[in-house]
């Protein structure tokens, strides 16, 4: 998949998060508390999403202007493994994953937004694969 094709998948993710998945995302997964940048790096290419109170406003290829806030980074193999099992906790576990995703931003910010990032990652898998 080219980077442009991946960007289109993130646009589809935007439709999902702001549409049919909105209620669950906002209310069950704490999405309503999240405002700011969330970046997923796929094979060294950053895809940056900006959220305002749980609504995805924008997504583009590039780094956030103020530096990484929260997110995860992995190569193609790591992302494919995640897309297969869709277990965010396993994919980021230093205990149980041989090659866990790398966290972007501070440990504190990622901890604060753990549920939000997890759900966005799962919906990314949905947008990419389903």
């Amino acid at each position, binding site marked *: 998949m080219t980077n442009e094709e991946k960007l289109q998948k993130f646009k589809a993710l935007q439709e999902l998060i702001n549409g049919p998945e909105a209620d669950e995302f906002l209310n069950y997964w704490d999405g309503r*508390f999240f405002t700011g940048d969330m970046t997923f790096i796929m094979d060294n290419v950053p895809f940056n999403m900006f959220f305002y109170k749980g609504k995805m406003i924008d997504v583009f290829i590039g780094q956030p202007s103020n530096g990484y806030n929260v997110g995860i980074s992995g190569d193609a193999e790591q992302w494919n493994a995640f897309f297969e099992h869709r277990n965010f906790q396993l994919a980021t576990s230093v205990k149980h994953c041989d090659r866990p995703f790398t966290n972007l931003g501070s440990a504190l910010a990622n901890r604060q*937004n753990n549920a939000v990032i997890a759900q966005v990652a799962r919906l990314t898998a949905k947008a990419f694969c389903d």
Partner: protein
Amino acid sequence: MITSRYVSVNGVTIFVETNNGPREEGVMCCFGSAGRETRQFHGMMDALEDKLEVIAFDMPGHGKSWPLEGLKCLDTPTSYCEFIIDVFKELNIENPICIGCALGGNVCFYLAQHYPVRAIVSMAGTDYSPFVSQAVIDNLDHPYASVQHTHIDFTDSLIGSNVSKENRDFILWGVMTEIGRVKRADYGGVYNGFDVREDMKKITCPALVIRGADDWSESEEMHKPVLERLSNSSHLEYQVLPGISHYNPQEDPELISNVILKFLKDAEA
């Protein structure tokens, strides 16, 4: 000896504790402050073991009671108080002496307006409490703010000057075990929306209103209109107790128990 069991009320499993005291002398039901649970009244349960049966139960979502469907809690004054009345019916509690602290102190007024009670004791309570700002409410159940930390200083400021270390520690433990969504429902919903001023004249039972002298959150001025609205109470008392503040039953359970026993004796003489 305090023992507990579970009962089902409106489909919700509720945790109930009793001191197994003599019910023939009377039954006292205890209602705690926002977010808390039955252990707030253990000191009083012990103090009154030979005098009255003292019962406390955890509201839905509190302590060991299950939450409502959807992991929710009661978040309006009416639903909260009507649930209590349903618990009374399930436990066959008649003619209770209702005592409450803070939110529980408010609740006693509603109960006396809607259920036949023997007497009420409202500690740090009021009949109208729109006191909580939206900024506070929003942050009670927020991923970026641990209510178990944010509420420490506020709570510490509300403990009286004469309270033992042991009792102070346990009040603070209550903060450290706060449940965010429960606190938000209790404090932001039930307490903040509480207004039973119009029906205060319906209260005809004996009523004791207690203020801890160190309680900066409940001033004497705030209690005056409440006392005026209790115009039909058969025996109305107002007591300001030195050295204690907002969490009366925990701060000095022996003192509170003795004050209540004397009040009942005087009211029913």
